[in-house]
């Protein structure tokens, strides 16, 4: 998409500077609208999928009334939420209370920007893509605390404090385990990271299989990522049996829906990050080497990318409907006594591996044996 933009801009080099600025802004707005539409559609179907998966696991049916197989359930839910009364508590800190859901949703949506959906499709090809996602998704914790404090409600405040403690703690194993993978392609650019994982039938050169440390790092990342997006078994910030609904206790209607959509958006982001860094991103497995038209390749790549993401999201839902909630002390113990030391060990191990074996992964070594 950036190349397309560049082509349009170079074609319009004769236009005046203001005209050019206007065109750039227009292109930005259009691409943002497209990504927002896709993100909202995904979030709608994710809520449907969540309920269906829950139904399957609990031997129920799940939503099946609205539309075929209940597929339009999210439309009904959305209309319901829009029609709900918008309540702002009298003693709330109104500015913080009103701003919080927008910041949560904006931060969650902004993380969609540097994702590389296929070889040529991405909104912005940032050279610090991974860092950007980690940074922007941390804004969520600030907004959660804003909403929690602004609600002027003890359950909200408890939930917000728990959320911040949890997100800040779990950022550490997340970043450390990401680093263990990032030192191999030595780039923070999403596209470069995925391009590094080409070859090996599109599977064996995944960073997941690069060395034992990255394999372990993937699981550390995935556990910590579930905690970072506040999903069961790490949903203590919104533990409904302990603190009503946590930081969004006082929110109603669309304001609540923003928090809800941000949760599903974050799920997508952490899964996309795991896919990009560990699971080969949009590398087409097995048939990637066959010559095919550009559009077909792009569509296949995007399809592969989304399939991997949805697989990870399914695993998140599967975990959610299996495990009970952790206590606060268990949560902190898991983070500080298990995940963080393992992540440090991983980082050192992966660094030593890269240093000693000169960037070659397990697959490269095995393939090298046959070439010689």
């Amino acid at each position, binding site marked *: 998409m950036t190349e397309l933009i560049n082509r349009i801009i170079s074609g319009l080099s004769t236009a005046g500077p203001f005209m050019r600025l206007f065109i750039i802004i227009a292109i930005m707005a259009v691409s943002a609208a497209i990504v927002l539409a896709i993100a909202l559609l995904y979030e709608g179907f994710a809520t449907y999928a969540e309920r269906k998966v829950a139904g*399957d696991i609990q*031997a*129920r*049916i799940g939503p099946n009334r609205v539309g075929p197989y209940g597929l339009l359930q999210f439309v009904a839910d959305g209309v319901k939420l829009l029609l709900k009364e918008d309540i702002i508590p009298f003693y709330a800190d109104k500015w913080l209370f009103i701003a919080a859901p927008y910041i949560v949703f904006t931060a969650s949506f902004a993380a969609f920007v540097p994702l590389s959906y296929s070889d040529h499709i991405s909104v912005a090809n940032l050279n610090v893509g991974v860092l950007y996602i980690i940074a922007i998704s941390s804004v969520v914790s600030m907004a959660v605390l804003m909403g929690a404090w602004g609600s002027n409600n003890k359950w909200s405040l408890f939930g917000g404090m728990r959320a911040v403690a949890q997100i800040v703690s779990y950022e550490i194993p997340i970043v450390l385990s990401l680093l263990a993978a990032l030192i191999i392609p030595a780039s923070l650019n999403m596209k470069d990271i995925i391009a590094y994982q080409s070859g090996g039938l599109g599977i064996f050169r995944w960073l997941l299989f690069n060395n034992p440390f990255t394999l372990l790092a993937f699981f550390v990342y995935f556990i910590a990522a579930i905690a970072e997006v506040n999903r069961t078994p790490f949903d203590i910030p919104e533990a409904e049996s302990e603190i009503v609904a946590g930081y969004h206790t006082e929110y109603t209607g669309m304001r609540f829906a923003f928090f809800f959509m941000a949760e599903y958006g974050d799920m997508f982001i952490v899964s996309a990050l795991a896919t990009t860094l560990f699971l080969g991103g949009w590398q087409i497995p097995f048939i990637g080497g066959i010559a095919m038209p550009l559009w077909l390749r792009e569509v296949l790549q995007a399809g592969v990318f989304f399939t991997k993401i949805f697989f990870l999201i399914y695993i998140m839902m*599967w975990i959610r*409907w*299996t495990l009970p909630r952790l206590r606060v002390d268990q949560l902190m113990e898991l983070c500080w*006594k298990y995940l963080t030391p393992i992540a440090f060990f991983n980082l050192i191990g992966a660094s030593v591996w890269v240093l000693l074996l000169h960037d070659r992964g397990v697959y490269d070594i095995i393939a090298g044996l046959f070439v010689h």
Partner: protein
Amino acid sequence: MAGYFKKMFDSIRTVLTGMGITIKYGMNSGKEVTQQYPEEKREPPERFRGKLFVDINICTGCTACARICPVDVITLKTVRDENKKLRPVVFDIDNGRCIYCGLCVEACPVDNCLYFETKYEFSAYSREDLISHFGLGEIKPQEHKPEEIKTEDKKEGAVK
């Protein structure tokens, strides 16, 4: 240190065991236990206590049921006909107040006169609609055929 790793492996093992159980159900779609109630209805058991029914033509009008009822569901009024037999002219059962204890069914001395049907769907818009009227009315029973009684009941708004 050994305890540290044991705890780690134990937690991984137990998590995987739990996830194995849930995926068995998760992949088994089509074996849901849910019944889609209005579309598919459960067959009630033989002795299910549903709506009370009176075969008014064999009722002797003894009022045993009305007297034993702990919540006064049954309103029974009888008159003597020309054969000096008791005829129930009013036999109202207020289904909204019935507690389905079954005492009236046990008290009824006539076989298959007062009994529970297996019907369980008889919701109505007003409490009056919940009263079923079985009485033969003030007119002499000889002049009546069962079909006519039915139509008369419908006019009164009985829900059956």
